[in-house]
């Protein structure tokens, strides 16, 4: 691959609508690192070797080498996505880390973790919310089952609202135990 890369530009979505992309600069990266550290305790060193790309309303994470593909847009390479969607609305107050991103980097999290009970796991994986008996601080939580990162949830009053993407819900659970 060519070694040059383009820091910003456009590539069209599936409807051929041009959407701007931009590789994050150091200041913008710091905003993201600070959020992930203060909210979940994920250290910035977890992202060494990766690149964040803002595209439309979302922030994506990829390897640095993946961004080399951007240099070929003008010669007709039709890029659909680069890497994995990491955060939605990354520079707004309502920023949200995705389940897929948290399943990778959440293993290094130390804050806002919620251990789900075995009896609640299946309903949660089916898309149901968790009803809480205890009081928890409002905001995003990483849902864990033992050492496993199940995904994201948002704590609102006495419940954790399910944030698992619908396409990943488990529909027919027919095993005796998990």
């Amino acid at each position, binding site marked *: 691959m060519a070694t040059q890369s383009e820091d910003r530009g456009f590539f069209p979505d599936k409807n051929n609508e041009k959407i701007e992309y931009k590789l994050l600069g150091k200041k913008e990266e710091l905003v993201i690192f600070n959020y992930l550290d203060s909210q979940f305790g994920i250290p910035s060193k977890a992202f060494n070797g990766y690149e964040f790309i803002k595209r439309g309303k979302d922030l994506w*994470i990829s390897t640095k080498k993946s961004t080399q593909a951007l240099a070929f847009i003008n010669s007709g390479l039709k890029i659909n*996505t680069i890497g994995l969607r990491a955060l939605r609305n990354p520079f707004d107050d309502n920023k949200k880390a995705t389940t897929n991103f948290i399943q990778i980097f959440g293993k290094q999290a130390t804050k806002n973790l919620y251990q789900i009970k075995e009896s609640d796991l299946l309903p949660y994986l089916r898309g149901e919310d968790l009803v809480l008996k205890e009081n928890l601080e409002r905001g995003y939580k990483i849902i864990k089952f033992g050492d496993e990162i199940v995904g994201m949830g948002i704590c609102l009053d006495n419940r954790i609202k399910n944030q698992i993407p619908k396409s990943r819900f488990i529909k027919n659970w027919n095993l005796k135990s998990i």
Partner: protein
Amino acid sequence: MQTQEIPKLFLEKITEILPEKEIEDFKKALVEPPLKSFRVNSLRASPKEVKESLEAKGFKLTQMNWYTYGFFVNSFGASLGNTLEHFLGKIYVQDASSMLPVIPLEAEEDESILDLAAAPGSKTTQIGMDMKNQGLIIANEPNQKRIQALQDNLERLGIINTVITRNDGRYFRKMPDAFDKVLLDAPCSLEGTMFKDEKIKHRWGPNFVSGSAKLEYELLKAAITATKSKGTIIYSTCTISPEENELVVNKVLKEFDIELKPVEFRGVNQSNGLTKYKDFEIDKQIKRCVRIWPHKAKIGAFFLTKIMKK
């Protein structure tokens, strides 16, 4: 499907390439449902851990003796797709023979690799785990409808190092010498699987085979062009007709400065590529291609070859 429903024209072709004593076994194997299998995603779990957790739930598993990450599922009523292991991206349900082409690709961490016909992502995710989520994979899929499945699978298995593109595969002729390695698991006439499937079995016909062969030849030319000197191309199909396999490779051998490399899967009953078919003049190197016959190997029919660009 019953063996007597296999198209006569297809069987006539098979009698040219298989000994008569094997035909009945081949026909039976062609219509039998394959043994269910899955691959462990080493980015998320070890084979040992997955084996223990699924066996504790009642699955009966046999680890493949030719691939550490592959397992056959011998029996259980439940669907693997509804397990926690599947949700967490620890496993990918994948036909055993479809795991083969990524093995000789020998993907390494910092390489640039093109997966020319990537959806639904079984091999892309396998390459991603071999690369330890580093470097770059371009996963190309021209059919927009199939891209969503590709993206869903990459996300579930936690693959970051991938750029999804939606070009006609022939576009990659315009990126000469760009990739260390290219996998072309070509869109083919599906002879290895279609006779097991009531919905698609009627698609087969000589025109379907010849049309597929033309496209495969064009795609393989693009794959070779896009590979760097000393780079590797894996060409594979899940079809049986020599027109889509040996004859496609035979043509590119005449046009490019390439050589075929031997491939051995220890523990798989593999056969050599055909060096005799009708009146075609076939290069002796074609013997280095690998054929997987379902009645011998007890996995789905497959063809692959490893090409080195000089």
